[in-house]
């Protein structure tokens, strides 16, 4: 059986291979047939890993299978999606509320799977919004956004959402320091007025519910990325910072002057102690917390007005600076929790700090100075080793659990594999092109699953069929099961695949929700069966309580609607089986369509502008009689006396 399959795959590939052989096959690529077999998921078979790729500037999170690279779903998070009604429907609009009003988009960078004992557990995945600082939580039973919390006193929420080893906290840091609280000052007063904040969001272990527990006020640098400690370093979190020069113009020159910037090592357990001693102050801060209520299937916003702030100046022992060359970007903690690896963007080496040495240096007060009361540790006393010749522009590191680290190098466009402890480079592979993050399944956890590394590239140029000036972004799947890395597959991605995380499929499949149970749907606008379908007028508001089933709407003829009415269609899908959504659209609906999953209720608002007949129909092909799934609405002038009626 297997040999037959192999032959089937092999023969055409061999022919192709022979033809292509002269077209310079680089030695890093696995042989065509070998690569094809490794990534081929036969029809009806399932992928081994779920992979979650951020969409960068598209504000969403996409779900892929590995090793096939097939796209399954784009999860709406920070951007409205007119395909499903996310951010348009009455049930989901509140998800996008912020203290700056309703914001229909953002720039989402770092998906992070929740962890238990330092291992991804498949409960939730978090992702950050950079532009208007927020953190979202996605429920991995439904693959839907469950919650979004805004982060006050922050700007450029890039160092986010990195989490502690039992998901006690999700941390977030400010890439752009700003006045705290924000105020109207001269930009040139940067050094005096601008501050950074490191935010700690507490996560309820049963519900996943987030709560901004506290913020730490820190000197006004650019806090770029973070990772929490694990094992022996559990209780600490590490944040990279650049622009220790505190420049506020032409940063590419002015923020690149110092040979070393800092990794801030934050002892959050110590911070908790200070808080319990009453050291923290409540300050006024307006921010929104939006939660999608699981029972009501409806999102609600809460406006918050205060946040607890610790000033690092007044809390000795909660932060130490590790000098790190140069303008470091990523900071990654190895599976053992001992090594803190920095991606020194402009450095010629990869500096690796030792947690044990750091503790010793702190104990010995081995300081070379301080910034605003935060001690700076001596570089030579905390460094475990430096990886020489790591490629140009090293950014991020992940681990395979077998003693090796893999670092992306942006400028030289490659992945460099090196050994923990000896710091020697053992292998390198080019990436196409300009790799940013890289991802190994579980590669930031205590127990990486290894097997693959995925390169997340910024540029694709000539790798695919061109599509005008705007071309797709790309990921590359690389086999790391042997000594040599081997390129297996290129696949295009939605938006910018900024970062990704992956988890074995079995962990998620067992909790997968197939539909919403009608009995548990407590949406305030639910219709319990067809006999409750109705249309109610309330002044100029009209509420249509409608049901869908294959293959009709109830009601499907409505008269007595008037121009300018606010018509709310509350649609309940009565199906109770997997994969039977229905769609809803009405001619001239200047909002979005709806996709209603089995057992779900969704509401869309329509304000008709002109008298006439308006057909509506199901947009999601549902059955043999899908074309019959339609209805008519009669809209009359404002002063007409057509009676409200429906059937």
């Amino acid at each position, binding site marked *: 059986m297997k040999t037959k399959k192999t032959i089937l795959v092999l023969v055409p590939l061999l022919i192709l291979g022979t033809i292509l052989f002269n077209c310079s096959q680089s030695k890093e690529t696995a042989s065509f047939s070998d690569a094809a077999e490794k990534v081929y998921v036969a029809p009806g078979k399932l992928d081994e890993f779920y992979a979650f790729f951020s969409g960068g500037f598209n504000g969403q999170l996409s779900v892929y299978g590995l090793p096939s690279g097939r796209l399954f779903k784009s999860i709406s998070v920070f951007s409205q999606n007119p395909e499903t009604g996310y951010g348009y429907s009455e049930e989901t609009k509140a998800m996008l509320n912020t203290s700056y009003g309703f914001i229909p988009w953002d720039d989402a960078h770092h998906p992070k799977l929740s962890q238990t004992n330092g291992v991804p557990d498949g409960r939730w995945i978090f992702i950050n919004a950079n532009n208007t600082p927020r953190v979202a939580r996605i429920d991995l039973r439904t693959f839907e956004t469950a919650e979004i919390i805004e982060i006050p006193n922050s700007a450029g929420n890039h160092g986010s959402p990195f989490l502690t080893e039992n998901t006690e906290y999700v941390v977030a840091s400010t890439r752009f320091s700003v006045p705290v609280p924000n105020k109207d000052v001269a930009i040139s007063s940067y050094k005096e007025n601008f501050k950074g904040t490191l935010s700690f969001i507490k996560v309820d272990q049963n519900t996943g519910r987030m709560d901004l527990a506290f913020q730490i006020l820190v000197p006004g640098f650019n806090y770029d990325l973070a990772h929490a400690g694990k094992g022996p370093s559990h209780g600490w979190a590490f944040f990279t910072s650049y622009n220790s020069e505190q420049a506020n113009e032409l940063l590419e020159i002015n923020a690149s002057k110092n040979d070393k910037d800092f990794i801030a090592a934050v002892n959050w357990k110590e911070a908790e102690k200070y808080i319990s001693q009453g050291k923290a102050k409540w300050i006024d801060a307006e921010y929104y917390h939006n939660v999608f209520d699981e029972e009501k299937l409806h999102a609600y916003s809460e406006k918050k007005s205060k946040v607890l702030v610790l000033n690092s100046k007044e809390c000795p022992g909660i932060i130490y600076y590790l000098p790190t060359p140069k303008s470091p970007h990523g900071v990654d903690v190895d599976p053992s929790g001992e090594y803190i690896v920095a991606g020194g963007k402009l450095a010629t080496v990869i500096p690796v700090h030792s947690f044990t040495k750091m503790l010793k240096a702190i104990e010995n007060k081995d300081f070379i100075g301080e910034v605003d009361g935060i001690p700076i540790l001596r570089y030579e006393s905390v460094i475990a080793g430096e990886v020489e010749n790591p490629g140009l522009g090293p950014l991020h590191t992940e681990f395979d659990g077998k003693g090796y680290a893999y670092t992306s190098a942006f400028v030289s466009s490659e992945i460099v594999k090196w050994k923990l402890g000896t710091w020697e480079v053992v292998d390198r592979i080019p990436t196409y092109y300009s790799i940013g993050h890289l991802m190994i399944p579980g590669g930031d956890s205590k127990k990486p699953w290894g097997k693959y590394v995925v390169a997340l590239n910024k540029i694709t140029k000539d790798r695919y069929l061109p599509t005008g000036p705007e071309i797709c972004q790309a990921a590359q799947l690389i086999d790391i099961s042997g000594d040599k890395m081997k390129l297996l597959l290129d696949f295009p991605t939605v938006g910018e695949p900024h970062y990704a995380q992956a988890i074995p499929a079995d962990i998620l499949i067992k909790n997968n929700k197939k539909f919403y149970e*009608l009995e548990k749907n407590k949406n305030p606008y639910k219709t319990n*069966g067809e006999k409750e379908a109705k249309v109610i007028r309330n002044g100029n508001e009209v509420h249509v309580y409608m049901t869908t*089933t294959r293959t*009709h709407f*109830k009601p499907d003829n409505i008269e007595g609607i008037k121009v300018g009415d606010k018509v709310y269609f509350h649609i309940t899908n009565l*199906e*109770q089986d997997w994969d039977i959504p229905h769609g809803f659209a009405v001619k001239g609906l200047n909002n979005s369509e709806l996709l209603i999953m089995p*057992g779900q209720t969704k509401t869309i608002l329509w304000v008709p502008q002109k008298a006439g007949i308006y057909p509506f129909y199901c947009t999601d092909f549902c059955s043999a*009689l899908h074309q019959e799934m339609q209805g008519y609405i009669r809209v009359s002038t404002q002063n007409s006396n057509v009676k409200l009626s429906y059937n």
Partner: protein
Amino acid sequence: MKKIILVLSFSFLLWSCGGNESNIDPEKEKLAIKYGLTPFEYENGVGPIKQKLNIPSEIDRIKAESGKKIFEEKCTQCHKLDERYTGPALRDVTKRRTPEYIMNMILNPQGMTQKHPEAKKLLSEYALQMTFQNVSQEDARNILEYLRSESK
């Protein structure tokens, strides 16, 4: 091969203990074999109900009431009692089918339209696959009681 043996031995098991049919109508037996079903399945449908149920002739009002509620929330979008809708009218369904058949149709509609000749026929007539509406066996029993109570 293994599968066939399994199925065969399983059907043998069903045969020997399935249903309390003391004297099987040989006509029906032939038909059942023709469709790859056991005589019990041919008579009572394919699904979780694998033997005759003990149903008193008296209607259980509490069960029927509960069945009515479920029926109205989950079934009336396709089935009316007295008119052909997207699914067949059900006023007299308890006269047409055995109680076990009705419950199997409620609990295993997809399996029924794949395996049972009667359900297959209805699928081709209505062109709509009946769905499992996420009801428990007890719910199905209550729906059955409601349908019995509405039968003329």
